[in-house]
């Protein structure tokens, strides 16, 4: 068997971008692809959830929420040690405490292609993990200042595109059930790899555009972006083991821990911490951590999970 073509599409985009090729996808296509991915993940999760929901889930959800609080608290002191300013550190920490739905789509495809079982309600955890790190990041930067417009901010985050699509898909899946959702199945079966491949092509192009910013900000940021995924994965793996996830589920939670947001959090930070430099977090998250997870991280996290949970 050859290379994973989905990953090759990412590499293709990356190389085309670094060569400064004219190649680009229309923005509407990129947006469509990310909508389809989020809906597919949510819908599939919802369909399965309806069949397997259990009381234990609530407890697991709480643990995952806690994980979202812990991750930025690990990232922040590390960034301060590397001598980033307080607000920049808080902002970057929020990005790494949150998750990347694109990375999640890749790990889903990977588990399916490797035929590894995972808990069907993982998409729920993606939605849960998006939020707490943002709150923690803001508090790290501002303290519990009364000036932060929490109300407006929480509206903006909860009603943001990615959470709406994930939760909307989940709910529709739960309400409609497996049989009724059948006609929409191509979304997460025959079409999923194709949508993901095109999405990763664009992600490669986007990642390549970070190279300029990366050269400017230098080694400190790169080292953080390469180190933090290991810490995030370790936390995810540990929590996954503690709450009794399967090997596949734990590896996925590790991947979520290792991933950094590049959609929801940048928008939130721009409004809540405008003085933070947005190109720092984007360069790290898109230019380093996303490629690292896609190309190297995911198989390692799976192996680690298999070693940690041999019986599962």
């Amino acid at each position, binding site marked *: 068997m050859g290379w994973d073509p989905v990953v090759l599409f990412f590499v293709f985009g990356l190389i085309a971008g670094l060569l400064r090729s004219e190649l*680009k996808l229309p*923005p509407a296509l*990129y*947006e469509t692809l990310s909508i389809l991915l989020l809906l597919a993940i949510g819908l599939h999760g919802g369909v399965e959830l309806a069949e397997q929901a259990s009381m234990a889930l609530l407890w697991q959800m709480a643990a995952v929420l806690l994980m979202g609080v812990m991750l930025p608290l690990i990232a922040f002191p590390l960034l301060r040690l590397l001598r980033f300013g307080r607000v920049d550190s808080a902002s970057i920490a929020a990005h790494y405490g949150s998750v990347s739905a694109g990375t999640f789509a890749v790990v889903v495809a990977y588990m399916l292609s490797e035929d590894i079982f995972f808990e069907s309600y993982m998409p729920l955890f993606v939605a849960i993990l998006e939020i707490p790190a943002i709150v923690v990041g803001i508090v790290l930067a501002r303290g519990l200042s009364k000036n932060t417009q929490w109300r407006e901010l929480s509206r903006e985050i909860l009603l943001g595109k990615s959470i709406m699509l994930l939760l909307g898909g989940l709910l529709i899946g739960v309400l409609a059930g497996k049989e009724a959702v059948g006609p929409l199945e191509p979304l997460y079966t025959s079409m999923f790899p194709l949508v993901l491949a095109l999405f990763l092509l664009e992600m490669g192009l*986007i990642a390549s555009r970070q190279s300029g910013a990366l050269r400017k900000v230098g080694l400190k940021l790169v080292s953080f972006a390469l180190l933090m995924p290991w810490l995030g994965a370790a936390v995810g793996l540990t929590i996954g083991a503690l709450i009794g996830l399967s090997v596949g589920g734990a590896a996925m939670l590790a991947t979520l821990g290792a991933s950094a947001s590049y*959609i929801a959090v*940048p*928008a939130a930070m*721009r*409004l809540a911490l*405008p*003085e933070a430099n947005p*190109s720092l977090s984007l360069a790290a998250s898109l230019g380093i951590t996303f490629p690292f997870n896609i190309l190297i991280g995911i198989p390692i996290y799976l192996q680690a999970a298999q070693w940690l949970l041999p019986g599962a």
Partner: protein
Amino acid sequence: MNETQTTATRRTLITIVCEAILESKLLKDLELLGAPGWTISEARGRGSRGVRSSDWDNNGNIRIEVVCSRRVAEKIMGHVQAHYYADFAMICFLSDVEVLRSDKF
């Protein structure tokens, strides 16, 4: 000015180019500051904060135009400079225009 023009009135056009993410915030401000209306189009560009292109979520610019009285235009310009210039990619400039039906502006 041309002699044939009888009904046209002078107003000021304020043009703001800024990060797209500011849109809803800025529009609320404009309303409070008394802008009688606004027109927006998508844009991209380069300035002191580097290149901003719209081929990716949230990274583009918008270009806002408001036709209004000189007073309101200056209020808007002062406001955006005070609140957004420091932290956001943004420029702002004024020019003179003539309108008919000046009650509209």
